[in-house]
Structure formats: C-alpha cells, structure tokens
C-alpha cells in the first residue's frame, strides 16, 4: 500500500526509474489491485479512522463538528439520561444474541443430523429449511407482522383462541416483543447454519462410525464420542458468525417494532441508526459505532484464530 502512495506522490519521477526499481511485476500487481484498493480505502479504512475521530466531537448536522474530547463516551457510560438508554441497548443486543444464537444452533444441528442420511427426498427437505434464509428480512418481517397481528385474526392469536388461551399483543407487548423477534430470527437464519453443519457432518469419515458400531456403540455414544468432537471447528465457526450477525441485526427491528415498545427492542445498531439519522447526532453515533467495532473486532480475531487452527486440523 505504501508503494501505491509513493507512486501518486511523485508523478514527476521518470517512469523508467521506478519501473526498474520495483520491477515490472510489482507495478502490474498494484495496477490489478487498484480498483479494489480504492474502494476499500474509501469505504472501509477511511470510515474506521474517521469514526474514531468523529466520536470525540459534538457534531449535530447541519452544524459543524466541535471537538469535545471524551464527552460522547462519558454521556453513554455515565450520564443519567445516556447510560440507562445505552445500558438498555446493550442488554437488548445481548438478549437478542443469546436468545437466538444457541437455540438456532441446537435446532440447526439437530436438523442437519436428520438430513445427513442417505434416504430419498433429503434434497426436498433441505430446500424447505433453506427457503427462509434466502428471502429478504424485510419481506419476511412483513409476513411475521401479520403472523403476530395483535387482533384475533393474526395466526398465532387465532391458534391461542382456538385452544382457549387469552390472545397476546406480541410485538406490542414490552415483554414479548424481543422473544417474538428472536423466534422469527431463528426461523429466518436456520437454513444457513444447517448447510454449514451438513458440510461439517459430511467430512466425518464414515469408517469411524462403522468401527464404533462393531464395538457396540449406540447412536448417542456415536454422537458424543465421534460426531461432536469432530465437528467442533464447524460448531465454533457457526457460533462466531452467528454472534457477529445477531449483534448487528437491524432490518427486523426497523420494520417490525421501530425499537419499541418502551425501547425494549432498541439494540446498539438501532440506537446508532436513531442517533445518526433521526437525531442527526453524528458524534454520538460514531462513539456507538466505535464501541460496536471493538466488540466485533475481538469476535472476528477469535474467528481468525479458529480458521487458522482448522487448517492444521484437516
């Protein structure tokens, strides 16, 4: 990257001199990298640096930014208005993540185990499970809003009525809103996990199961002693990706609940969106972005280390 910068800074240097100094291949390589590099510089590296700087300012559009030091962070972590709101956003994010990821993984693994059989029609079932994942979160949010409709005509309420239970207000009930989003999230995200688990399961050597069966191991013992340890890299990958995605969920909150009721579905990303594009407080939103970035950074580093260990494993 430094080389590319030098090229731009010294346009006066005679072409043949740098051509000779770096060799033809280096120049050609950077020409091939140029398009992607410009995009990444403008929309990945610059924004991160910019966010860090902006998080130390008070920047309420359309006014100019004012340097305020740690004020935004102090507001989020210590202010009597800021901290409760921020704490609620963290709690909601953790709630959504812990509520959806482990359950999603358990169901996905179970279904993947069921699909990992040589019986007719497996493909058909796999297609069915995968269908929610490819359809857009927005379209499916609209469908689930209708399923969760608080009147007697919503599907869930009509079932409750039929079996003689009182109806619920689902997305409009402060206590039920988040579980409702979690249920929909699990349904929507399952397919992806199933495919990855299936790939992991198919990498387990069949001979191990045959040997275990000869030794008289039952289904549960085979799972505990062979399947579970051998797919552990897959399981960890699904876990990290799942957490990263769940922590950044936005569309369903925006379409279905707008962060409500009583802020019970306002996650960190939703709060960021609200501060930046409804309150136009760019500095405070940047502080939130930095907070989110640090957490995601740690999670991704874990994942990278994992991907590294997987190489040796195979």
């Amino acid at each position, binding site marked *: 990257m430094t080389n590319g910068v030098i090229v731009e800074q010294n346009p006066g240097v005679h072409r043949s001199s740098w051509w000779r100094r770096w060799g033809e291949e280096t120049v050609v390589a950077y020409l091939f990298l140029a398009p992607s590099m410009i995009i990444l510089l403008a929309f990945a590296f610059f924004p991160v640096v910019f966010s860090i700087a902006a998080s130390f300012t008070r920047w309420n559009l359309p006014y100019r930014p004012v340097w305020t030091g740690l004020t935004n962070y102090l507001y989020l972590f210590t202010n009597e208005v800021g901290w409760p709101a921020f704490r609620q956003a963290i709690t909601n994010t953790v709630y959504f993540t812990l509520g959806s990821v482990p359950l999603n993984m358990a169901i996905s693994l179970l279904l993947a185990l069921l699909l990992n059989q040589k019986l007719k029609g497996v493909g058909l079932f796999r297609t069915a499970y995968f269908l929610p994942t490819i359809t857009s979160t927005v379209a499916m949010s*609209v469908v689930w809003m209708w399923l969760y409709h608080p009147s007697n005509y919503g599907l869930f309420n009509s079932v409750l009525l039929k079996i003689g239970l009182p109806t619920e207000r689902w997305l409009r009930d402060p206590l039920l809103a988040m579980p409702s989003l979690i249920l929909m999230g699990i349904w929507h995200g399952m397919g992806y996990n199933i495919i990855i688990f299936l790939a992991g399961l198919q990498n387990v050597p069949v001979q191990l199961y045959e040997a275990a069966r000869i030794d008289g191991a039952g289904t549960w013992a085979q799972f505990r002693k062979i399947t579970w340890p051998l797919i552990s890299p897959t399981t960890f990958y699904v876990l990290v990706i799942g957490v990263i995605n769940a922590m950044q969920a936005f569309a369903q909150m925006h379409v279905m609940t707008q962060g409500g009721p009583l802020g019970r579905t306002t996650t960190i990303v939703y709060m960021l969106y609200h501060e930046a594009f409804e309150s136009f407080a760019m500095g405070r939103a940047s502080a939130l972005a930095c907070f989110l970035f640090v957490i995601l950074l740690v999670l991704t580093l874990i994942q990278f280390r994992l991907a590294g260990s997987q190489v040796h494993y195979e």
Partner: protein
Amino acid sequence: MTTKPTTGSVPLWQSQRVRKGLVAVLWYALLSVTALAVMLPFIWMISTSLKGPKEVFTYPPSWIPSAWRWQNYIDAWEGAKFGRYFLNSVFVALAVTLGQVITCSMAAYAFARMNFRGKNLVFALYLSTTMISTQVTLVPSYLVMKWLGWMDSYKALIVPFLTSPFAIFMMRQAFMTMPRELEEAARLDGCGRVRFLVQILLPLSKPVIASQALFAFMGNWNSYLWPLIITTRQDLRTLQIGLRYFVSQEGGTQWGLFMAAAVLVSLPVIVIYFVVQKSFVEGIATTGLKGT
C-alpha cells in the same frame, strides 16, 4: 419401505427390515413436521395474498381463500411504484455483482500469482476489512456520500459495494490451485495477463466465481440499511425499501395487498435459488468450512 416379514424364525418387530422401515418412517415424520412448520409462514403469506379485505379479517382464519383474488397482486404492484423499485433492485444488484467479479478477480489474480513488494502486508490489510461492516461504517460512509454529492443516486447504491475482501480471498484460493505451467505456456504464446485472467483463469474457476457472484447478488438484493439512509427520493428506492414504505404508509390494514407485495419481492430470489441451488449450497458449504 416394505414391512412384510421375511424371516420366520425371529419375531416381526426384531427383524432388521422392519426396524429399518420404522426408523425411516420416524425420520420422514420428523422431517415432514419440521419442514411444514418452517413453510407455514410462506403458506400463510400466499394464502392471505389471495384473500379479499373482508376475508382477511375473519375468525377462524381459512387456509384456502374462498375466492382467489389475484387482483391483490395487481393492486399491490400499482399501489406503489413497484415496477420502478424492481428495475432499481435489478440494476443495482447486477452492477454490484459484475463489479465485484471484476475487481475481486483482478485482486485475487495479483495475490495468487504475482510476487510484489508489500504483498503480505496488503493481503493482511485486505483480510482485516472483512470485520468492517456496513453498520460500523454507516455514519462516515453517509457523510462521504453527502460531500461527494452522491445522495439519492445509483452511484451511492453501487460504488461502496464494488469489492468484497471475502470474495477476493475465495477466488485467490481457487486461482492458486491452477497449475503454474498453464500460465507460463500461455505467456510464452504471447498471452497478456489480462487476457489470461479473462480467457483462461475465470472460465477454469467457474464454480467459485458463480457462488461468489450469487452471494453478491443475493446480499445486495436483500440489503436494507444502506439504501434506507442513502435514498430519499421515491424513484430511487429498491424493492426492500419500497415494500417497507408501502406497508407503513398504508396504515397497516391491507394485509392482502401487503402479502401480495411480500410475495412479489421474495419471488425473484426464490426463482434464482431454485435454478442455481447446487452452486449456492456448495458455495456456503465450502466457504463455511475450508478455512484455507
């Protein structure tokens, strides 16, 4: 599966074939029940999309509409500029996909086959951007668009997504498996690097290119947060944004129309999925597993 007893000596329920048959029946039952549960929202969506406004609000709800009201689809399509939204989505997603294949294959070729100064550092920097999401860069990217005067433009919807470090990584892996002799022979015959990439490397790496292109298209088609903040003009909305505004502006009662619109928005990706299912599933399976 047949359940006829075949051996006379052991009791029926102990026969291998009977037990296998029972297991298969149980297996099918379990999968069918869960598949039905997963499909239920889709069935409900399609069912409601064909109901008249009165039938939508009747208790108990009917799964099969009394009269199939196809008019809902026409009304939904005309209720908002869905034709325009559709064209916007197709154009933006295709442009992003094409752009990603171009920029990513170029970068992947450089990383896979060229020796240059700073290669390891640049490659590490590229990989590090996989952890930078739209959510994290939302505010600065938005401000950049404002400064460039790109708000409410196709450029704003397309340009930030014209590359993907993840796709670069996957393509690099594929390019590295190609024998070096292939390139040496081609170069000796006077084939330039660009021509080698386009005419030999890309066709030989079709599965990876296809699955990465598919991810780019689907991901962009379904994206929501960025188009939401970057477009204010109605005629630049993508399908996802259009659907959201359609539902929130109609006051939340026209569920027949809403479900019809949701079907219309979902249908293109579902059709694509059925056509290219194999490469899609393989793409996820390999990217999910092969860390190298």
